[in-house]
């Protein structure tokens, strides 16, 4: 092998970069976050699977309806009336952003800009 003085270090750097996740994680797969569900509310505005997969799209849709289309009407789910708002509807039940939103969002580094403007509930603990 020729030029091994340059090529081998080059390859080592390459492999180290490629395997970065292996040595960065120290072989620790970590805990999957457990989110805290509201104690007093049993039902969400949509089935759990739906809301879990598409809550951001629902919020986006609400936003468009409320702001752009002026469709602010309440909607009813199982006899309860809801307003289309993150701040006043979602967070009404999910009283803790930290224990609900942030658990998954932090784990997967999803950083939506909701809270730049919208007010999160005051954390009680």
């Amino acid at each position, binding site marked *: *092998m*020729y*030029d*091994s003085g340059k*090529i081998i270090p*080059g*390859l080592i750097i*390459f*492999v180290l970069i*490629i*395997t*970065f*996740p*292996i040595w*960065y*994680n*120290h*072989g*620790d*797969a*970590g805990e*999957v*976050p457990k989110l805290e569900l509201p104690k007093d509310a049993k039902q969400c505005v949509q089935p759990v*699977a*739906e809301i*879990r*997969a*598409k809550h*951001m*799209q629902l*919020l*986006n849709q609400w936003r468009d309806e409320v702001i752009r289309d002026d469709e602010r009407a309440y909607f009813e789910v199982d006899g309860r009336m809801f307003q289309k708002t993150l701040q006043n509807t979602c967070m009404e039940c999910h009283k803790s952003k930290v224990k609900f939103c942030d658990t*998954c969002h932090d*784990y*997967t*580094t*999803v*950083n*939506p*800009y909701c809270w730049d403007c919208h007010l999160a509930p005051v954390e009680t603990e």
Partner: protein
Amino acid sequence: MKYTFPLAAVIALVLIAWIGSNIPGMQYLFGIVIPYLAIATFIIGFCYRVVQWAKSPVPFRIPTTCGQQYSPLPWIKQNKLEAPANTSQVVARMFLEVVLFRSLWRHTKAEIHDGPKLTYESSKWLWLFGLMFHYSFLVVVFRHMRLFLDPVPWFIQVIEFGDGILQIGSPGMYITDATIILGLVFLFGRRLITRNLRYLSLANDYFPLFLIFGIAVTGIMMRFYFRTDVDIVAIKRLAVGLATFQPVIQAEISSLFYIHLFLVSVLLAYFPYSKLMHMGGVFLSPTRNLANDSRMRRHINPWNPDIKPHSYASYEDEFREFMVENDIPVEKELPPKAE
């Protein structure tokens, strides 16, 4: 056409992953076994290939000089990037080549007109879209590290934030999602439209394009359109698990994810056996990574054969008579003429 087979191949790969991942238990094959095999093939194959290259020497110093050489005449200004005379200048040249695709920047398009008259016009599209594609791909790879790393390091978050800075839609659109598709469409389109390129393209030029296109499209579909069962927490757990050798599939994950992952695995495994090795090769090209200093420093050829010139002695032996007659100095005088 040369793109039909690669297209069919990619479609077949999609179907394999789609149908396969729906068979109970096969999720472990597509989610764990194949990715491990693929990354191992990639790393070992890549290194093997580079080592194979390195086993051959660079017998001669053959940089392509694209500018003025170093000259001892002080008013002749050396082009340090295009005719590097030492290692640091070579490093600068290589850096610009690898990072900015400098040679492609020179690209021109030639046309022939009546006369005959040849014209050359600067054509930067290949440079632009090539750069766009490669950098998009790089950013996309970096972005995905958020799924493999726990906690996610700051620089990955910075890249992700930058990529999503337009804050369009929810989930937020990434700039690179658009640019990688744009780049791929251009790179594919020019192979179809440009005559020269259509003729010289091979099936193995189309295959990686389709494959990467498939990867990008399944990724975009998962993020924006078919979110059901694409539970990012479960996916991250699997990804981190893969990186820590404790893989777990803790929820039912959409086939779309397995298709995406399978195509990525195929790309990784295909990489070392294909032209994609240009990623490593670009660093080793002797016309770019050598200094134009072959008159200043002796370059050694390890297999330099032992070849002697036709010797002066035998030359003089053959022509001595004529040389003497014509007053050309000789080493050995003519033998006295035998009377």
